[in-house]
């Protein structure tokens, strides 16, 4: 499997308490465990099973993903923050790998 590559889109600066949009995507095949390869063998399940977002260390969002989610999962949500800080993103793979990114958000 090609190494998954996460990407995020966050505004560089936001207003305190005002909602802003966050877009995330990770390249990942999201093998369901039900497909077969060209030789007829089952392709083992391998998905991103959890997506987490923390703001200044505090959990802001946690999502369980299931095999029905398509390849290259795209997650978009809105959030609001009271003050400047660090947004951290984590994608947890079935194989135990964790892919992470972080981005500073400036308020004001």
């Amino acid at each position, binding site marked *: *499997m*090609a190494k998954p*590559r996460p*990407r995020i*889109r966050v505004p560089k600066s936001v207003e305190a308490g005002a909602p802003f949009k966050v*877009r995330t995507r990770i*390249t990942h*095949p999201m093998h369901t465990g039900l497909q077969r390869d060209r030789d007829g063998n089952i392709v083992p399940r391998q998905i991103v099973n959890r997506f987490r977002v923390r703001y200044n260390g505090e959990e802001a969002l946690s999502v369980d993903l299931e095999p029905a989610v398509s390849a*290259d999962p795209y997650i978009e949500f809105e959030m609001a923050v009271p003050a400047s800080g660090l947004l951290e993103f984590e994608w947890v793979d079935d194989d135990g790998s964790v892919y992470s990114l972080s981005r500073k958000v400036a308020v004001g």
Partner: protein
Amino acid sequence: MNQGEGVMSQWKGNNGLSRRQVLATAVAASTALSAPAVLAQGRPRVVVVGGGAGGATAARYIARDSRGAVDVTLVEPTRAYYSCFFSNLYIGGFREYASIGHSYGALAANHGINVVHDWAVSVDRDKRTVGLAGGGSLSYDRLVLSPGIDFKEGSVAGWDLSQQNRMPHAYKAGSQTQLLKAQIEAMPEGGVYCMVAPPNPFRCPPGPYERISMVAHVLKQTNPTAKILIVDPKPKFSKQGLFEEGWQRHYAGMIERIGPDFGGDKVEVRPASMEVVIDGEVNKVDACNVIPAQQAGRIAALAGITNDAGWAPVVAHTMQSRADGNIHVLGDASQQGDMPKSGFSANSQAKVCAMAVRGALTDSKVYPARFSNTCWSLIATDDGVKVGASYEATDEKIAKTDGFISQTGESAEVRKATYEESLGWYSAISDDMFS
């Protein structure tokens, strides 16, 4: 191609006429039209600028269907034409380079067209002359401009024409295509190929994405851990569902497209360090194909017939410029309405234009304009898809009447047949332009 055959059958009905008789008829017709300028100079003169799918077809049809009654000069700087269509298949290893190259020899030998290998650098619309870079000028009764595209300066930050060897566009076929292919083949193991895709409107809407397919096809065989990155300012693209299905099927995990939702519209390239900066994030790449924003070939602007967007608006019935009825504009350079900018479209428009020019200069019969287009794309070996439509001329524009597109989930047999159909088309349009 039915329009052309229609014109031919009209002439076949006149097979008893010798060329001289046809000429005499033409001169008589000119007299009837009381066109002293034409009479004083002998045969009416048509100058065609640009020897691609629009210009070569127009020159050939005007010369052939007027049976020598119209003097046709084709101005084209290159001596061999390399078609942009099918150049992706050369990159993918499905065509030899020589097979997309064509000579202008038959246009001179078979149809008496005066082929001038030079750049047209000016148009004097009052005197009706075209200036050539090598000096001298050509006068015309009708001018056909089919100059294709040029790139908009500054549309991709960090890129200009001086960088085209380091980051090729390969969007005018020829040495640029060879260069890009060589750079893809020289990528290190696991390297990154990046394409900066153009904004609408541009030549060959599925072209960038067919190219991605062909690059993936090559890399899958020779460099399977390599990555393909598409930086795209557009939210959607032509045949998107078909391409994405094919990429997942043939090249899973290899291709990543960054649309405007992830900053694909905020890109800067750094050719010296081979970096692509996407909304502030630096990506190191090993081959980079920059396809900038486009506008009509420069001569159209120099003739003063382009609009603010850089294209030349035309009347759909005849492909005449809306700014000057003595000038017709074909193909990519024209702003005509619903047709995509494609070789097939240019060829189709050229036949309508040739008929209108022949009709105006020789007072021969013309028929209502009809247009058609099909764009085929190859995704992988024997996996061809297509999109196409028929069109008619309205006073406002070339208007789509009905269309068709390949479906996702089609059988291998259908996809193979679609690819084979495209091979037949390539051979037919090559003959239609150059035989």
